[in-house]
C-alpha cells in the first residue's frame, strides 16, 4: 500500500489547531490593543485641537494686553516731566523717560539696548555728584532698601536741585530686577519756598514793629471820641462819637489780634511765666464773659475742680487770653442754652500740675468737614450762616498757637446744630498746693464776694451821687456790711448843695447824669473850698481799658465800673478810708433810713413806702432765710437771673428782694414817664430813662428787660426813631408782664 499524501495525522492535526487558536487569540489581542490605541489617539487629537484653540485665544488676549501695557508705559515715559531711569542689577539701563533726550544727546534706543548708568549720566551730572549717586545705587542694590536724597548739580552756569528717589524692583516671574531712579527737579519749588519764607518773615517783622505806631493813634481816636461823648452837647456829634468809639473798640480788638498773630508767627511772642492765682484768673474770665452774656439768654456755668492747687506758675495773661477767645466764640455762636466752663486738674503731688480746660456750648456747632479749618488763620467757617457774626478769623488760630507754646494742644469736638467743645491741657508748676476750694455751689454767673467782716467804717462820711434810684440803693446796700450809711443825691446840683454843708471822706459820682453830668459836677466840687483834696470816685458804665487813667486825668481819684462789683467796692473803700473816724455818728439812722432818698428835681420816680416790709423781713437774722430762698428760687424759675442780682446785692438776699420789690413798684411811674418822653419825641430824656431801666434790670438779673432797654437806649441815643417806634411798645409790654410776674411771686 502507498503513503497517503496530504492526510494529516490526528496528533499533528491537534497541534495545528492549537497553534491556530493561539495565533487567533494573539491576533485578537493585538487587534484589541490597536483599536484601543486608535481610540485614545482620536480622543487625544480632539483634546489637543480644543486646547490649541483656547491657547490661541489666550495668547491673543495676552498679546493685546501686553501691547496695551507697552503703550501705557510709553505714553507715561513720553509725557513725564521727570527723568526716570530703570537699570538692571548691573546698573545697565533698561528704559528711560523722554526727558533724558532733552538733557543729553543719548538716544532712547541706546538706553533700551543697555548702556551703563554712569555713561548715560556722565553727560548730565558732575563727576562728584555722579559718584555719589552711583554709591547710593550700589547701596540700594545691596540692601534692597529704597533711598531718597537731594542732589545739587550745575547745568552750565545754572544750579539745579533735584530730589532723587532710588527704588529697588524685582519681578519673580520674569527674573528681572534692578533699580528705578526718579529725578524730580525741585529748583523752582525751593526758590518759591524761600521767597515765600522771606516775604512772610518780612511781613511778620513789619507787623510786629507796627504795634506802637498803630496802637497810639487808635488810643487817641478812642479817647477823643470819649471826650466828645462826655463834653459835647451836640447830639449829632455825640451820636457820631459813639459810633467812632464803637468802631474804634472793634478796630483795637482786630488790631490786637493781628499784632498778636504776627508776633507769634515771627517768633516774637514769649510765654512769660509768673505766679498767679487760679481762682482770680477764673473769676476775671467769668466776669468778662458774664458781661457779654447780659445781652443774651445764655447761661454761664463755671466748674472749677476745688482740689486744684490755688497758686500756679504760668503765663496768666496768655492763659486768660485763650480762655476768653474761646469763650467769646461760644458767646458769639450760642443764642440759647448755656456755656460750660470746666477746669479740672491732674497732679501727682510732684512735678507740674496739668490743667484740663474745656469749654462747651449749646451753640450752632461746626460742620464735620470744617473742623479741620477752624484753627486756620483768617478763616471763618460756615460763612454763609455766620455772615453777621464779626471776627477776624484769628482768635482760634492765636489760641491754638498760644496753647502749643505753653506745651498743650487745643482740640475741638462739635456736632453741627448742637454745640461744640474746645479743650486743652497745659502744665504749670505748683506754687501753693492749697486747694482752690469751692467757688460756689451751682455756680451760675459769678463768684459771690465774701465781705471782709473785719473792715468796719461806721463813722465814714460817704456821698453817692447818681440819678438812678436803684443805683443809689445798690451802692448803699453794698456799703452796709461795713457799717457805712452814705448820703445820697440824685443829681449834680443836689450833691453840690450837700458838700457845702458837709465834708465827705469819699464821694462816688455817677458819670452820666442829665443836665449836669458827673465830670462837670466833680470839677465844680474841685473849685470849692477844700475841694481839691476831696476824694471823688467816678461811677461809670464805661469800663473799658484805659479809661481809669482818663478819669484820673480828668480829676477823679479813681473809678468804679457799673454794675458795681462788691469786691471792687470793698477795695475802693479800703483804699480810700484808711482810718476810722472818731466822730459822732451821723444824724442818719442806719436802721431803715437807707431806703429814703433826698429831694430830687422831679425826674426820678418816688418809691412807695411800706410794701418793702411786707411779710418777708422781720428783722431777725436768719429768721426768714428759708422764705427768701423759696422766693429767689421762684424768681429763678420765671427766668430771673437771681445769681447776678445777688451778686450786685453782695449776696444779701433780704436786700436783693427788697430792691426787687422796689423795681416792681417803680413800674407805674417809670413806664408812664417813658411813654411821655416817647410820645413827645424827647429822645434825650427817653434814652436816660431807658438807660436807667436797663441798668436796674441788669442789676437785679432781669436780663430780658435789660436787653430790650439797652437796644432802645442805643437807638434813642442815635436818634433812631424808627427803631424806637418799632420797639417801644414791645418794651413797655414786656416790662409790664415781667413786673406782674415778679409781683405775683412776691405776693405768693
Amino acid at each position: 500500500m502507498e503513503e497517503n499524501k496530504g492526510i494529516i495525522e490526528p496528533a499533528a492535526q491537534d497541534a495545528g489547531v492549537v497553534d491556530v487558536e493561539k495565533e487567533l487569540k494573539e491576533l485578537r489581542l493585538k487587534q484589541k490593543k490597536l483599536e484601543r490605541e486608535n481610540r485614545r489617539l482620536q480622543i487625544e487629537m480632539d483634546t489637543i485641537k480644543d486646547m490649541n484653540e483656547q491657547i490661541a485665544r489666550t495668547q491673543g488676549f495676552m498679546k493685546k494686553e501686553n501691547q496695551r501695557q507697552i503703550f501705557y508705559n510709553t505714553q507715561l515715559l513720553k509725557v513725564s516731566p521727570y527723568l526716570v531711569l530703570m537699570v538692571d542689577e548691573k546698573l545697565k539701563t533698561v528704559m528711560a523717560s523722554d526727558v533724558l533726550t532733552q538733557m543729553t544727546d543719548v538716544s532712547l534706543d541706546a538706553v533700551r539696548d543697555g548702556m551703563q548708568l554712569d555713561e548715560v549720566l556722565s553727560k548730565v551730572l558732575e563727576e562728584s555728584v555722579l559718584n555719589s549717586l552711583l554709591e547710593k545705587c550700589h547701596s540700594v542694590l545691596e540692601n534692597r532698601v529704597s533711598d531718597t536724597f537731594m542732589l545739587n548739580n550745575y547745568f552750565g552756569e545754572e544750579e539745579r536741585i533735584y530730589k532723587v528717589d532710588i527704588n529697588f524692583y524685582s519681578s519673580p516671574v520674569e527674573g528681572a530686577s534692578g533699580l528705578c531712579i526718579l529725578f524730580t527737579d525741585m529748583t523752582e519749588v525751593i526758590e518759591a519756598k524761600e521767597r515765600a519764607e522771606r516775604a512772610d518773615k518780612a511781613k511778620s517783622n513789619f507787623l510786629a514793629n507796627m504795634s506802637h505806631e498803630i496802637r497810639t493813634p487808635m488810643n487817641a481816636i478812642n479817647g477823643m471820641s470819649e471826650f466828645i461823648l462826655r463834653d459835647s452837647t451836640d447830639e449829632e456829634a455825640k451820636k457820631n462819637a459813639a459810633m467812632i468809639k464803637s468802631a474804634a473798640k472793634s478796630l483795637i480788638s482786630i488790631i490786637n489780634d493781628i499784632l498778636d498773630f504776627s508776633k507769634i508767627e515771627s517768633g516774637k511772642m514769649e510765654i512769660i511765666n509768673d505766679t498767679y492765682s487760679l481762682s482770680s484768673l477764673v473769676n476775671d474770665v467769668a466776669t468778662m464773659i458774664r458781661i457779654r452774656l447780659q445781652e443774651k439768654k445764655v447761661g454761664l456755668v463755671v466748674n472749677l475742680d476745688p482740689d486744684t492747687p490755688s497758686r500756679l506758675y504760668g503765663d496768666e495773661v496768655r492763659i486768660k487770653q485763650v480762655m476768653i477767645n474761646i469763650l467769646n466764640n461760644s458767646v458769639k455762636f450760642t443764642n440759647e442754652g448755656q456755656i460750660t466752663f470746666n477746669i479740672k486738674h491732674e497732679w501727682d503731688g510732684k512735678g507740674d500740675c496739668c490743667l484740663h480746660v474745656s469749654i462747651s456750648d449749646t451753640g450752632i456747632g461746626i460742620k464735620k468737614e470744617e473742623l479741620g479749618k477752624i484753627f486756620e488763620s483768617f478763616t471763618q467757617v460756615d460763612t454763609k450762616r455766620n455772615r453777621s457774626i464779626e471776627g477776624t478769623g484769628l482768635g482760634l488760630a492765636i489760641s491754638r498757637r498760644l496753647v502749643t507754646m505753653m506745651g498743650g494742644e487745643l482740640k475741638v469736638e462739635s456736632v453741627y446744630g448742637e454745640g461744640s467743645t474746645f479743650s486743652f491741657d497745659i502744665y504749670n508748676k505748683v506754687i501753693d498746693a492749697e486747694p482752690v476750694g469751692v467757688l460756689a455751689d451751682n455756680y451760675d454767673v459769678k463768684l459771690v464776694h465774701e465781705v471782709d467782716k473785719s473792715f468796719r467804717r461806721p463813722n465814714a462820711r460817704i456821698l453817692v451821687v447818681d440819678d438812678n434810684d436803684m443805683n443809689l440803693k445798690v451802692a448803699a446796700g453794698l456799703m452796709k456790711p461795713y457799717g457805712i450809711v452814705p448820703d445820697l443825691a440824685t443829681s449834680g446840683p443836689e450833691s453840690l448843695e450837700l458838700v457845702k454843708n458837709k465834708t465827705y471822706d469819699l464821694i462816688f459820682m455817677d458819670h452820666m447824669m442829665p443836665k449836669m453830668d458827673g465830670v462837670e459836677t466833680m470839677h465844680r466840687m474841685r473849685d470849692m473850698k477844700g475841694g481839691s483834696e476831696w476824694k471823688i470816685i467816678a461811677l461809670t458804665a464805661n469800663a473799658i481799658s484805659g479809661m481809669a487813667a482818663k478819669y484820673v486825668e480828668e480829676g477823679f481819684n479813681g473809678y468804679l465800673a457799673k454794675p458795681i462789683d462788691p469786691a471792687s467796692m470793698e477795695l475802693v473803700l479800703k483804699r480810700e478810708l484808711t482810718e476810722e473816724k472818731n466822730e459822732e455818728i451821723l444824724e442818719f439812722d442806719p436802721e431803715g433810713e437807707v431806703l429814703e432818698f433826698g429831694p430830687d428835681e422831679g425826674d426820678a420816680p418816688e418809691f412807695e413806702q411800706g410794701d418793702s416790709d411786707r411779710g418777708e423781713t422781720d428783722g431777725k437774722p436768719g429768721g426768714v432765710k428759708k422764705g427768701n430762698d423759696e422766693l429767689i428760687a421762684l424768681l429763678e424759675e420765671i427766668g430771673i437771673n437771681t445769681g447776678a442780682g445777688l451778686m450786685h446785692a453782695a449776696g444779701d438776699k433780704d436786700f436783693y428782694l427788697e430792691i426787687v420789690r422796689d423795681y416792681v413798684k417803680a413800674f407805674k411811674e417809670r413806664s408812664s414817664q417813658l411813654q411821655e418822653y416817647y410820645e413827645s419825641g424827647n429822645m434825650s430824656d427817653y434814652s436816660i430813662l431807658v438807660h436807667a431801666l436797663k441798668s436796674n434790670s441788669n442789676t437785679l438779673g432781669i436780663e430780658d428787660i435789660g436787653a430790650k432797654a439797652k437796644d432802645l437806649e442805643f437807638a434813642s441815643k442815635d436818634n433812631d426813631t424808627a427803631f424806637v417806634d418799632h420797639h417801644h411798645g414791645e418794651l413797655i409790654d414786656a416790662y409790664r408782664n415781667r413786673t406782674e410776674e415778679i409781683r405775683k411771686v412776691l405776693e405768693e
Partner: protein
Amino acid sequence: MIKSKVVFTEEIDDLETAVEELCEQVGDFTLQKNSVGIIFMDEDTEYGELYPMLKEKWDIPFVACTALALLTGDEGLKKSGISLMLMSADDCNFAVGMAEDLSIDDYSWKIKDVYSQSEKQLAPEEIKLVLTMGGKAPGMVGDDVIDVIDSFGKNIPIYGLFASDAFNFSKYRVFCNERSGQNAQAFVFVSGNVNPRFLQVKSISGKANFSYEVTKSNENQVFRLGNGTFVEALEKANMISQKNNVIADYIMTPFITTIKKPSGRVVESMRNLTFLNFVNGSGMFLGGIPEGASLEVGYINSEQVQKTIDEAFETICGWIGEDGSTDHTMLVISCAARYMSLGKNVTIEAETFKKKLPGNVSVMGMYSYGEFCPIGEGAEMDNTFHNSTFTVLFL
C-alpha cells in the same frame, strides 16, 4: 519602616500573562508583617478578573484605580498597562476601605464611617497618613473629601487622586479589594512608623492679565467675578469658546486661585475649568473655589515644566537617606492636564525620575483628574486639592 516594590506590565488583556509577568518582577521581595497593594491600571483592564489572581498570589488588601497614563521609576511613562506597588512594613499597619455610591447628600457620613472603622481597626495606633483615590461624584469636589477628613481635627495629611481615564470621562473607576465603583472613594489608612513628606509643583510659566475676586460661588461653581458674571469676564478677555463642555480647552491655561484655609493661611492652588453655563454665566471647576478667593489665568509651557520638575527632583534627592532610612517609597501623581499640555514632551516628568534614583527608592505614579497633596508641614500643614499640579509623596 515601609519597604515597597513596584512592578509593571503592559499586558492588560491577557491577565494571566500579566499577573505572571508581575510575579516574576516581584521576585524575591518578601512581604513583612503588614502589607497593602496599590494598583494603577488602564481603563480597559478587567479588574474583576485581575483581583482574584492577585489575591491568590498575595493575600493582602488591594486598592486600585484606572489611569490615563502610568509612571514608574524603571519604565518611565507608559500610556497603558498595569503597575502594582506592594507596600509592606513591620512597624506600620494598613487599613483599607471604600465609601461607595457617593452623592452630595451622603458622602460625608459614608466617608466618616469608613474612617471610623479603619480607626478602630488600627487602634490603639493613630492614623498618620491617608492615601485616597476616588471617582468624582456629581456635585462633589475634592475639597469635600478633605473637609471630611479634616473635620476629625487630627491634622492628618491626605495624599491621593481622582481616578482618570482616556479623556472619555466615563470609564474611570476605583476599587477596593473585590469592590468597585465610579462615584466612590477608596482609602488606605496608615499608622505606625511613617514619616511622609510632600511636594507640589505648579510649573506656571506666566499669568495673563486676568485677575478677579470671586464675588459669588457655590462649591466648584463660580457665578460672579468682580461686578460681572464669570462668563462675562472670559468674554471680555476673549478667552472663551462657545461650548459648554470645556474640560479640554483650558488645560494649558489653568486657573490659579488663592484660598484661605480654616487655619487662616492662604494657599495657592490650580483649578481646571470643566463646564460653562451661558444661562447663568457661571463656570464649573474640578475643585472648589470659595467666595473671596482670587482667580487668575496662568499658562504652562514645557520649558517651565522641565525646570520645575528638575528642581523637584533635586529636592527629593536631598531627602533620600536624610532620616537614616535605607529604603524609600515614592508615589507620584501628576495632573492629566499636564500630560496633555506637554504635547510631544509628554515624557518630561517621567524621564526625570526614570532610573535616576537609587535602587532603594521605588517610584510609582499616574496622571489623574485631580490631586490631593498637603501644603506646608506639621502644625502649618493644610490639606489641599489641586489641579494641573505635579505632586509627590515621599516615604
